């Protein structure tokens, strides 16, 4: 470094102004302040220090001070270079162990476009879930669902309690307990009329989107009824067996209902 400065001193042609000296002082400070930043610079930065001072005509203490400053700057630069090399080496090792290369990342991860094709959106329904008819998973046990079973407990004067729906969704059964007894409400979810006949000897017709109330038992007594449903325009039939029994002894009068509906064609 000292030889190089001597060479530069011999080659210098212009005198040094006070402004240039001030600039030199600023350069030294900036070199120190940017020491930390230098670690983040690219590894391809040149590792040489080229002072461009011209000390021609400068003698005495000022010259000595400037040379010392130049040496200090060179020393700081060399030290930063060593730190940079060390950091780059560590970063390189980290990149190799902790990060994928571009090719490896492409081979490992899907692009946003490919992920859209591969995976369901947050709220998108699965194609096979559409086949379930919107019913909850617990409603399915196995098979194609020709038999549906439901149980419910109704309180005296309470609201209608959902009991079951036929496996194909055509009929929905709810139950209630009134002072007159237990009864079932049958809703025809289809568009065609459905005739019904019960083991109690009663019968009727439920129009499309209509409903009917069918007694199950009188008062708080136990009872059971079998009901046949016969759609007018379809080659199928439904059978509902429905029973009601007094519920557990407690403050409120209740009735336990259990029903099973078969639907089939032939």
């Amino acid at each position, binding site marked *: 470094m000292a030889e190089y400065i001597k060479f530069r001193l011999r080659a210098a042609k212009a005198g040094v102004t006070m402004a240039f000296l001030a600039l030199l002082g600023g350069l030294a400070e900036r070199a120190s302040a940017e020491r930390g930043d230098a670690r983040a610079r690219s590894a391809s930065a040149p590792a040489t220090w080229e002072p461009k001072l011209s000390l021609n005509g400068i003698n005495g203490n000022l010259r000595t001070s400037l040379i010392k400053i130049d040496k200090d700057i060179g020393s700081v630069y060399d030290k930063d270079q060593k730190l940079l090399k060390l950091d780059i080496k560590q970063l390189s090792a980290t990149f190799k162990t902790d990060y994928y290369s571009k090719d490896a990342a492409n081979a490992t991860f899907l692009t946003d476009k490919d992920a859209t094709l591969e995976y369901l959106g947050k709220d998108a329904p699965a194609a096979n879930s559409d086949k379930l008819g919107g019913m909850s998973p617990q*409603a399915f046990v196995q098979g194609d669902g020709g038999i549906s079973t439901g149980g419910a407990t109704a309180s005296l004067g309470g609201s209608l309690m959902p*009991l*079951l729906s036929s496996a194909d969704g055509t009929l929905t059964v709810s139950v209630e307990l009134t002072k007159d007894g237990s009864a079932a409400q049958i809703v025809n979810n289809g568009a065609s009329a459905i005739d019904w006949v019960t083991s109690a000897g009663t019968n009727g017709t439920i129009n499309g989107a209509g409903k009917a109330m069918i007694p199950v038992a009188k008062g708080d007594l136990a009872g059971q009824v079998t009901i*046949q449903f016969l759609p007018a325009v379809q080659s199928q*039939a439904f059978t509902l*067996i429905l029973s009601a029994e007094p519920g557990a002894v407690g403050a409120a009068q209740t009735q336990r209902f259990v029903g099973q509906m078969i639907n089939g064609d*032939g």
Partner: protein
Amino acid sequence: MHRQLASELPPDGERRGLALSASKEVEPGARAMLLLADGLFRLDVAVSADTIRTVVRNLSSGELEIESEPGYASPTVIASAEAAGYRPAGTRIAFQLGGGPDRVHAEVRLAMLRFADRGTVRITAQAIVRNAPAG
């Protein structure tokens, strides 16, 4: 005394149809007549442990041909947790019998509920009986 519902179905082309429905509550091991189609068949059932046994008695003059045997796992939908306590199950059986133009095809579905508190089983059956397809 045997009680069942029997209703005529709308014809399927030229095939007339009949729907039979009945339900019986039986003790395990007991055999019970569930469906009766006069001059055609009688369907008996017996429950033993987890097995439901079906017996088709041919009352016709023609040959009985079982098309599908009942199995353990049958289509069953449970609509509520309260119903699961009754351990519902079901099965189906299909057969043909009768002779000549009176030969019929029967599609029978059986549903079962267990009443553990009184140790009984309720079996419900629905049969749809139609003239057998020509040919």
